[in-house]
């Protein structure tokens, strides 16, 4: 099917503000927005957008599709088109725009450091862990650092959700010396964290779920 894409363009050397450019691309309904972007790129080789895995596991292709932050390689064209032609593709909001669909990721990756994003091994850790506990760590560990939650959050400048996900995942880890103390170290009010945890699965392309029992433990 032929689809009209409205892609946001911005060249820092020439433009003062982003503008839209229309592309007509031929794609199959079950192809993804990333496939459509690759078609557009073949028409204009100067178009810039990130991609890597094309299977929703690396986080490179996060953009705003029809107004909502999402992964281009995870969004099927039939779904994007159903929301009404043309399909608009813009850079993630809340990030500094560098070129076309490419935004500045430095502050995002930098923000991780604030939560001490590594395991601090408990001295008495004996090397075993129950399968249930291990499973509860798995899911939050699938965060791909795509930045969609950051782009989708009004308070992201202060909260940095991706860092929170890492901190909350480490807080549940029985191997970690800080463990539930990490919650207090975050210095984010527990009500805010609770709301964040509740809203995350709907925003996050990986549907990351963190049960909020850990929040209770962190406070007491």
């Amino acid at each position, binding site marked *: 099917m032929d689809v009209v894409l409205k892609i946001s363009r911005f060249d820092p*050397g020439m433009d003062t503000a982003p503008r839209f450019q229309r592309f007509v691309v031929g794609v199959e309904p079950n192809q993804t927005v990333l496939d459509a972007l690759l078609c557009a790129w073949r028409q204009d080789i*100067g178009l810039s957008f990130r991609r890597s895995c094309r299977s929703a596991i690396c986080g490179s292709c996060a953009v705003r599709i029809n107004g909502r932050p999402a992964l281009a390689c995870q969004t099927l064209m039939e779904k994007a088109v159903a929301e009404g032609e043309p399909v608009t593709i813009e850079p993630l909001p809340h990030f500094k725009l560098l070129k076309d669909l490419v935004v500045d990721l430095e502050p995002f*990756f930098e923000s991780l450091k604030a939560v001490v994003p590594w395991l601090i091994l408990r001295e008495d850790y004996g090397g075993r862990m129950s399968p249930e506990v*291990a499973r509860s*760590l798995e899911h939050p560990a699938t965060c791909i650092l795509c930045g969609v939650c950051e782009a989708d959050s009004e308070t992201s400048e202060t909260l940095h959700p991706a860092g929170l996900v890492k901190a909350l995942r480490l807080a549940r880890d029985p191997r970690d010396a800080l463990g539930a103390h990490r919650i207090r170290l975050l210095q984010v009010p527990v009500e805010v964290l609770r709301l964040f945890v509740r809203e995350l699965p709907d925003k996050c392309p990986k549907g990351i779920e963190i049960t909020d029992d850990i929040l209770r433990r962190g406070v007491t």
Partner: protein
Amino acid sequence: MIMHEVLIVGGGLAGLMAAMNVSGKADAAVLSKVYPTRSHSGAAQGGFNAVMGEDDSIEAHVFDTVKGSDYLGDQEAIEVLCSDGPRVILDLERMGVPWTRAEDGRIAQRSLGGAGFPRACFAADFSGHVVLHTLYEQALKRGVKTYPEWHLLEILVDKGRVFGAVIYDLARARLEVIRAKRIVLATGGYGRAFLKTTNGHANTGDGMAIAYRAGAVLSDMEFVQFHPTTLYGTNILISEAARGEGGYLRNALGERFMAEYAPGKMELAPRDVVARAIFKEIKEGRGFEGHYVHLDLTHLGERLVAERLPQVRDLAIRYSGVDPARVPMPIEPAQHYSMGGVRTDVWGMTGLEGLMAAGEVANVSVHGANRLGGNSLLETVVFGARAGRKAAELAPGEPWPDVSSNTVKDALDRWNRLCLAPSAHSRSDDDQFAVRREMATIMTNQVGVFRTGVELEDAVARLEGLRKRYRDLPVPVGPQPFNYGLMDYIEVGHLLDLSEIIARGALARRESRGAHYRLDFPQRDDRNWLHHTFAHTTDRGPEFSAGPVSITRFQPQERGY
């Protein structure tokens, strides 16, 4: 000019593991064309082989690997891989990897193809992802300097010794020279040379092509792994774990056809065997719609699929529209892994002084003619760590290599003309996308699972034609930030170099071994071909020579499954 004692190129598992092992001992930096967490290692699902249980043994792991390699793997290196494995897995666990656990709380293990034992440690089917992120956390902890979205363009050599690299900084659209005492290449594979591949967009073989141009030796490039089970159409990987957990392969007649090809191992035979079986079924008219077969998980039950294979399920639902817990998945084989690469020893040392390599870019030859599932992730962490340790041991004591200022200037001038100046080439109607597509089509159709002399000869000739066309292409002009067109142009050049070497190597090897299957020479021929293929660059193009295989414990024998 930037200086680092050890420059690690690549932020995947091999690169980050190397960085961790250098950090604190020598000044190191990691350079990567994508942010490290976006490296292709993160897509790996199945797991890391390592002997953890009491009933398993290092010797058994070595034997399975040697046999899997069709006796072309270097047994000395395989011994190192298997012996270092358990330690590294435990190290990773203490860094925070959330391995899936068995009932008794130990690290759980699953069966992958070609193994005589459930030997793969895993975290559901996100194994590569969680280890990549854990290593990234460790890099943050150690304050490892990273240069994300910096592309290696050239390895600089003076008087036979590596002294640095030319880099293109994508965000700022400028060139940079980094001087280093040692460069560790960890740039991964070249899957994008093939039209049908499980590999992501970044896997364009840069490191192999750049090392080769700088004078390093590539070995065993004709051995290309095709994964049996990728989603029909997109070629997104369906991990071997799906068969490891008990999945069946069925043809259009509903038969579990592996009974014909590997009755002893069925679906868990090695990849080369299964890929050929699937192709044969399809070719002989027993595929669905003439194109694919089914991978059937429906008998495993919703719960097991959800717990052990959540990503497989997600991918199948999204990209094929089927829920594998209920409906069989349409699958076909596709390119997956490069057994060949930059020749190294067990410490990652290449023949080029100052250059080291580890991971998929390297050929330390633990996989020989065919890699077993789970051995590549293990290779990245084991040999990444060893290369890091060796570099850390050597670099501090080494003097900074001398360089004549002309060498740097010449290189910079050359790249400046290409990257930053308006295109000097004549405008043509041709474009790099067309050249890439033709190359990838030739590779998939003629240098694929089944090969013949006639088709390979034709492939070599056509690839040569493409190289000529490539030389006349207009270069996407800069300077502009995030000039992916320019990067793509350079990557196509790398892929063309490597494709030619793969095709020529395959044409020369007149036998069938592991993943290299010649319909016109269907037998393995140990008398004439039990040796590695080395490729060197010359003014006249690639030149090939033979190198010995290290055989210590296990003498070659027939490889039945």
